[in-house]
């Protein structure tokens, strides 16, 4: 069993030598082959998106070999007999061909669609992980912005992709896209006439979306994803707090061989799940929808999941429309379309992009952060995040209000009324509840650190009192809990004469100081005041205490 390598085998040494003499890669590899990658389940979420993207490129290329991006009118004579003799676009006919006349074509089409859903889903949960752990903080703000761009582009990539087959469902989505685009003030008609090559639907949109979908957007995505990876590599991954983990180190497994193998296996898992879904879970059966005609639509038309929040916003909007000038010439503002099309997306994407900078402005925290926060330890951030998720979630649910009404036998109109109410109330409620939960969890942490964990043993004291015995927490748990840091805060204290520090005197400065005081500080300190022996005392002070630091 002593078959261990003593020297690099010739088959590897030869080519390596050839390459190094020309590229000089050994210096890079010396530093990077054993690069350390920290471990945590939540660090795997972004990888789902990365691997889905690779699968999208591969399956997508396969589809282009047969797909015809043309709206030329053809009479179908392929092997799907229910549509024989029906007039349709070449795009739809070639999608049917991929589905029924190419072996493995249906599998690749379904894999492509499932991978697209998983791509956006993976990005979304990865983004939430980065947000809630504060992993976007200095020095990673730029990578965060690249991430926001990636998410936005992924939505555009999805929209241009599912419009291509030119079936009745994708056409409905395209029609809504047109209705939204034309509603924009002043430029709306220009945008639609330029996009569709004239009046809707025209004969160009499939070819144009095809160019965007297979070349322009994936090209930008690829470039940005590469930049995202390079920055992650250079800045090194964040790590969760724990034993021997500090802001100056990274603890984990080396790239070669462990992380490499794990990442490879994880890619294969993603591929297997997508292949399994494509095998057993039908998606987008375009042959059942029929070719597109603007005269028809099927009830229960739903977009892919990541467009659901826009759909929901359109559905719950009251019918507001303004004629600015009151004339018959210009000035129509269809608010019932413009607001839902722009506002939720604008709030979410702009909010995401600006958050790291707003937080830095409020906390005045200009330090580098490499240890991720546990979400509970920055309660306002976590509450803002959950509040935004609730906002998104309400819109998303309402995007399927007809399904909700049908399946739960409630009035369709009432789902809309409820949506109009919940879109304002639910995020506020979510904020309050999350904030309280974060403080509660922090109190529990403080209790674990200062009193230990409950042992389940009840002891009777000589004078008759019963107490529960507590035992100290395990090392690594304690290290994990003690990894907490107070949220940074600006020096807001007034001096002896009652004058606030410089930069906090104007109205904006005062607002900043007030926000900093609320956002920053230690809400529930890990109390180290007394040793825990066998006492079961009340835990936590009960009051929020903000400590300046």
């Amino acid at each position, binding site marked *: 069993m002593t078959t261990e390598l003593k020297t690099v085998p010739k088959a590897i040494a030869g080519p390596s030598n050839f390459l190094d003499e020309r590229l000089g890669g050994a210096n890079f590899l010396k530093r990077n082959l054993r690069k350390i990658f920290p471990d945590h389940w939540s660090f795997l979420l972004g990888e789902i998106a990365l691997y889905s993207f690779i699968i999208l490129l591969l399956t997508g290329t396969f589809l282009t070999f047969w797909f015809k991006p043309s709206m030329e009118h053809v009479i179908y004579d392929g092997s799907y007999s229910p549509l024989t003799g029906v007039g349709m676009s070449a795009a739809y006919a070639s999608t049917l061909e991929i589905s029924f006349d190419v072996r*493995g074509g249906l599998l690749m089409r379904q894999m492509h669609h499932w991978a697209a859903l998983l791509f956006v889903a993976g990005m979304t949960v990865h983004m939430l992980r980065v947000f809630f752990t504060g992993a976007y903080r200095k020095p990673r703000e730029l990578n965060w912005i690249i991430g926001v761009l990636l998410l936005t582009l992924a939505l555009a990539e999805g929209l241009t992709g599912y419009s291509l087959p030119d079936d009745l469902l994708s056409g409905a989505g395209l029609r809504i896209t047109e209705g939204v685009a034309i509603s924009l003030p002043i430029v709306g008609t220009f945008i639609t006439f330029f996009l569709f090559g004239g009046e809707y639907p025209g004969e160009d949109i499939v070819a144009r979306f095809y160019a965007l979908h297979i070349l322009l957007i994936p090209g930008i995505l690829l470039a940005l994803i590469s930049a995202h990876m390079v920055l992650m590599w250079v800045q090194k991954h964040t790590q969760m707090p724990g034993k021997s983990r500090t802001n100056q180190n990274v603890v984990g497994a080396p790239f070669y061989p462990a992380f490499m193998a794990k990442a490879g296996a994880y890619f294969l898992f993603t591929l297997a799940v997508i292949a399994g879904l494509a095998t057993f879970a039908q998606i987008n059966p375009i042959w059942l929808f029929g070719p597109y005609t603007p005269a028809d639509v099927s009830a229960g038309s739903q977009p892919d999941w990541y467009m659901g929040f826009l759909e929901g916003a359109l559905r719950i909007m009251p019918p507001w429309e303004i004629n600015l000038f009151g004339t018959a010439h210009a000035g129509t503002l269809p608010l019932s379309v413009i607001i839902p099309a722009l506002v939720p997306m604008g709030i979410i994407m702009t909010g995401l992009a600006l958050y790291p900078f707003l937080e830095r402005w409020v906390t005045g925290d200009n330090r580098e952060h490499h240890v991720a926060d546990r979400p509970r330890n920055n309660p306002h951030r976590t509450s803002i995040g959950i509040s935004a998720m609730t906002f998104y979630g309400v819109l998303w649910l309402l995007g399927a209000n007809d399904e909700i009404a049908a399946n739960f036998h409630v009035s369709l109109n009432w789902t809309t009324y409820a949506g109009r109410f919940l879109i304002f109330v639910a995020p506020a409620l979510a904020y309050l509840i999350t904030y309280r939960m974060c403080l509660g969890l922090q109190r529990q942490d403080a209790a674990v650190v200062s009193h230990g964990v409950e042992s389940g043993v009840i002891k009777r004291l000589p004078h008759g009192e019963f107490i529960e015995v507590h*035992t100290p927490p395990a090392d690594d748990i304690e290290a994990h809990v003690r990894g907490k840091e107070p949220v940074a805060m600006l020096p807001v204290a007034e001096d002896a004469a009652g004058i606030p520090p410089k930069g906090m005197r104007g109205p904006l400065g005062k607002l900043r100081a007030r926000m900093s005081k609320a956002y920053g500080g230690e809400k529930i300190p890990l109390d180290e005041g007394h040793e825990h022996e066998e006492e079961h005392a009340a835990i936590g002070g009960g009051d929020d205490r903000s400590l300046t630091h």
Partner: protein
Amino acid sequence: MTDNEHEIEQPDERVPKRVIGTPAPGTSMLGTVEASDTDAEVPGVTLQDEDKARKAEKIVALCFTITFLASLAFIVSYVYFQVGSPEATGTSNLALGSTLTIAILGLAVGIVIWVRQIMPKYSLIQERHEMASAEPDREVVADTFIQGANESGFVKRKLLRRTLLLAAAPLGLVPLVLLRDLDNSKMSGGRFNEVLRHTVWGEKNKEGKPLKLVVEGTGQPIRAADFNSPGSILSVVPEGFEHDLNALAKATLILIKFRPEELKAGVRQNWTHDGIVAYSKICTHVGCPAALYEQNTHHILCPCHQSTFDAADGAKVIFGPAARPLPQLPITVDEQGYLIAQGDFDVPVGPSYWERGDAERAAREQGGQA
């Protein structure tokens, strides 16, 4: 988690370490325990127990063999199962997909067991360095920048700088200008409204007569006398434009037969024929076909965003995000009794847009004059 009774039983240890649902001291609630690296040769690298590793190797080998077999099965399925009908395609998809899934899953599971049970456990530490460059380096870069800027003459030579900026401005517009012909009609922006506000219902057929209303799908003209059961509904397209998607995107109609007493004030009576009313089927919200009709309530419902219109009352909006009623098309019958259009809609159909203005008011004023 129930294997701790014996600990509690020990009489002297009345301070047991554990209770059901709580971890024993020393075990970790989060992640695996950092194994002691006493027997490891390199700190932070803990080798696996050789017996366990040997057992794991066999499982990994089994996984890889499964992948081998499943890949072969994939190739066989590709050759054996032909496509062509929905059933055959379904079988082929199932065979190809399941063999592919199993093949990849085998490889994935094998590698994971390899990493977790054969490769060592790692807890290596690497130092981080601040991202910012060292101050002297920054100074060198700043000096180099200044030197280069001065050498280039860009700062000193105003004429050069200004003409370069001058040159850049129109050149930057070139790509934008190139996009102008994206609109194939090349019409001026001012004409968009003109095009949008008209539908083919204003045109005449080859014989110079108004267009007949024909049934969508079959292309049959509709004799008013045959469309006579109240509550019935038809999806209608213009004669001669049955397959013209651009025309259909604006001209598709929903045709409803009412009892005369059901019609309310919102309906323009002289635009109906014998209780038959024609509305644009294109929703005024974002343009979906408002395809659903509820006979009892006379509600037209758009399935996309649930805008609801009262067909008995001029298709006025009673629910949902649409802000305007579905426009009514003036119809009548020709000498053979077929339904025809009297002319075009008096307002633009479909979704609202900036240039449309208050077309309804303009139409009302015009109607008043006539």
